[in-house]
Each structure stands twice: as C-alpha cells, then as structure tokens.
C-alpha cells in the first residue's frame, strides 16, 4: 500500500477530487498548506515597510491506495492539477506498512 501526497494549487482541489472519484478512489484527506518553491518569492510593502511573500497557498492531498492503483492515481492527479504554469506542485509516494479503518478495524486493502 502506498501513501500518495500531492501539493497542488488551491483552485484545482475540486477538479482533482472529481477526477480521482471518477477513477474509483473513495477516500482522501486534504489540508491547507503554504508552499515555497520556484513560484512566489515576491516582495510586497505593507505600511511602507517591505516584506517577502515566499509562501503561496497550496492544498495538500493525501491518499492511501493499493500498490496497483498508484500509477493511475498519480496520473490522474497530474492531469487534473496541471495548468502548465510554474507552481503546479508535486506528488510524492511513500510506502505504507499498515492501514486500518477505525470504525471496523479492517486492515489493508479492505480498509481503503
């Protein structure tokens, strides 16, 4: 089982969610984050003093999927989150040792 983490542009969340849903993904968890990267890094002035805005708002999506579903999920996210402009974000994949559904105690693939 793998944990896919995607950091994307906020206004793409619904598109990505709908696209994943269409491929049969039934669960994911998202959070508000701020991203530092090639995009961003401009200077603004507030009340006359300068400050750097290094972070831009991003949304982080985490979903645990079966090993076999990783590629399709990654591709789906890639397609749905892409605008072709700098700052579209990253996807990374990490191995998961165990997954448990709290309600039922089911483990592994059944728990997804």
């Amino acid at each position, binding site marked *: 089982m793998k944990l896919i983490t995607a950091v994307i542009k906020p206004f793409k969340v619904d598109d990505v969610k709908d696209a994943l849903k269409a491929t049969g993904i039934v669960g994911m968890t998202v959070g508000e984050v701020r991203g530092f990267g090639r995009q961003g890094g401009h200077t603004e*002035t*507030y*009340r*006359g*003093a*300068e*400050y750097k805005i290094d972070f831009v708002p991003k949304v982080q999506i985490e979903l645990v999927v079966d090993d076999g579903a990783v590629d399709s999920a990654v591709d789906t996210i890639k397609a749905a989150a892409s605008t072709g402009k700098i700052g579209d974000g990253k996807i990374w994949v990490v191995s998961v040792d165990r997954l448990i559904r709290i309600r039922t105690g089911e483990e592994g693939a059944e728990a997804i």
Partner: protein
Amino acid sequence: MRKHAALKYALGGLVGAALPALLVTGSAFAAEVDPIVALGEATNLLWVVIGAVLVVFMQAGFALVETGFTQRKNAAEVMSTNFAIFGLGFVGFLFIGFPLAFGGFSYSAFGLATPMNGDGLPAVGGDMTGLLYWGYDHLGSAASPALLGFFLYMVAFMDTVATIPTGSMAERWKWRSFVIWGLFCGAFYYPLFAAWTWGGGWLAKSWDTMDLGAGYVDFAGSGVVHAVGGAAALAGAIVLGPRIGKFGPDGKPRAIPGHNIPMAMLGCFVLLFGWFGFNAASTFAVTDIQFATVAANTAIAAAVGAVIAMYYITFRTGKPDPGMMVNGMLAGLVAITAPCAFVSPWAAAAIGAIAAVLAIESVLFIERRGVDDPVGAIAVHGVCGTFGVLAVGLFANGVYGAGWNGAVDNAGEAIAVKGLFYGEVGQLGAQALGAIVIWTVIFGFAFGFFKIQNKLTKGGIRSTEDDETSGLDIPEMGVAAYAD
C-alpha cells in the same frame, strides 16, 4: 475657556440673541424660565449627550483598528486593552481627573477662575473650596443633568487619549503595567493640558498675556486629545522599544502585516461615524448651527484624506495599501478636529490632503528612526494632531468664533479667529505655542511616567520575550482570540 464655559454660553443662550442666558437649574424647568430658552437648553443638552454617546462608540473603532493591524497571536490581548481602557480611564477621571480639571480644586492650579458649583456651572463669585466639597458634587444628589452631560462628554474625550498609546505600544506591553497607564491617564495625564486650554488655563489666556490671536484655539481637540495622546504613544513606544523581529539585523524595518484587514477597516468606519459626535457636538449647542459646517468639514477632510492617501501610497510603493488608506482617513479626521469650525470647506479638503501625506511620510520616518508603532498611532494622532493645531493658525477664515476664549482687543471688540492665509499671524503663534508645550512638557510628562514605571516594575513594563514570541493571549488573558 470654551469647554467649561460652553455650559453657560451654549446651554444657556444663543436661542435668539435677544434672550438672556438662563441657567438650567434642575431636572424640571422652573415656571419662571422662558419656555423657549428651556426648550433650547434641553435640545442643546441632548446634542451634547448624543455627541458623547458617539464618542464613546469610538472606543470600538480604536479597538478594531488596533486589533486588526496587529498579529493574530495577540488579538485577544490588544482587543482587551482597548476594552479595559474605557473603564480604567473613566474611573481615574470620575474620581480624580474631572474634579481636578473642573472642580473646586482646580481653579487656582489649573486655571478656572471659579469652581464649578453643584449645577455644573461656574459659580458666580464662588469661595475658595476644596476637592472634597465642590469637587465631588458631580457624584452626589445635587449633580444636575447638565453637569453630568458635560462630564459624559469630557470623559469620552479623555478615553480617546487613553486608548491611543495602546496602539503604539501593542504586542509587547504587560497587562499590569497597561492598567496603571489607564488610571493615570484619566486621573492626571489628560486633565493637565485640558485644563490649560479648555479649562481656561494659561494657554487659553495667551491672547491676553502674550497677545496671541484669540489664544490657543482647538475646537474639538486635534491638540488637546490627539496630539496629547500621540505624545504619550511616542513616549511609550520609545520606552518599550520595538517588537522582536521588527527590525532586521541590518536595522531595516520589516513589515509585520496586521492579521485582519477588514476588521481594521470596519474600525475606521466606526471612527468616522463617532467623529461626527467628537467634532460636531463640540458646539455644545444645537442652537449654534455651526455644527452643520463642522460635520461637513469633518466628512470632507476624511474623504479627501482617504483618497489622497490611496494615491500617494500607490505613488510611493505601487499599491493602494489598505493600512495607509485607513491611516489617511484618520489623518484627515485628526487634523480637521481643531480647525473644523473655523475653516471653509476648501480648506478642509486641503487639510485632509496634507494630513494624509503627512501621516504616510511620518509612518515611514518614525519607523526609520527605530521606533516601532504597529498601527501608526504616533503619525496619525501625534503628527497630524499637531498639524491640525497649526492649521487653525493657517486656514481659519475669521467667520466663526470671534471672542473665543473671551478674547477682546483693547477696544473691547471680540477678536476673530483668523489664520495666516487670512492675514493674521498672532493666531498661528498661539497655536505654535500649544504645539510646543505638547511636545515638550506633556511629552515629558508621559515619558517620565513610563520611564519611572518601567524602573519601578519588576522586570519592566515590557512583556517577557517568551510571552511576546508565543503571543500574549494565553499568558496574559488566559484565552486565545480565536479558539480552534
């Protein structure tokens, strides 16, 4: 003389020049009082009370502006200082400041020729009396409605002064030290300059003693309230020093954006609203219809101040910084407060425009000098308040206010309030004198207070580094501004 004498002149008279000024003598009108005069007096008193209520509401405006312009982690604390100051200053003024400035105790030391009597009106030929006798009549059953209406208006003005330093000293001031400031301001700090000017003291009399125009003239308090508050704001900010992280290792100021811009803008609207009470009700009388001119001038200066600030900051830094738009409107309001009754609308527009530029440049200048003022209180109230004081000496057109401070020339003719642009130089002298006194004596008074308090307080009046970095809300107030 204005503010206290206003009760006699405004409440008592002006209802048709032909009628004698009669006193409001109790809660019902005595049968022998001319009903028109009685109705006029009652209506005038209503205006004073409505004005006071509007000024009280300005506390909400200050609270919103200061909290919105500071950081989320201190929001409950900053809001609470602005909340608590209302009561703290009030209590200090109720029990000490008001009797001191306007009661029996004050008349030799502070400038009243005669003490106020139980009716809240200067007694004619009153005897020497002590603080505990005449001075506390406003607390007893002999206190007249007129005296209490006057007290309410005055206490609301005092609270404005008290709340100004909570802005410049925000985010690094110990609660317990702040509390003492509140009491001190109501009891001693505000009453001093108020007595010297509105209390009929030596600055009011400078037309006589120094031949300066009509003496120091400050219609609703650009100086008495705002510059005096701004002086304390500067003194306090210096004593506290800048917030951690405000200045980079290179000494260059860094922006610490406010945590809630809409909140600050709402606060500015509330201030604009309340300011009409602050300025227009300072006629102390409906029968002095100059209140309408005052209201219009106030709005004009505010509107022009906001617009010019928008253009000027865009020109300076490229974008219409909301913080500076707010400061621009407030700058216009502060600056028009002294001259609002004496100038033409075109001059109100000019004063608003100049004040806006002045406020922006002052914010930048003060910051460059290493003083950290999170909300711009020093620039807006201190600098623009001072400009407002001087503006009377520049723009006053002489139409209104002849005989202010009781000023008469050798021929016994009332002296007009006229500025440099209308050919008189004396008035500007009186105004400059007032401004100098604020920035020497009064500033020194505040600076001394904060310095001594800092010495006497264990660990000083500044929050610990830990509290400051983690935010004052939990350590000081026990609760975060925004739970979860």
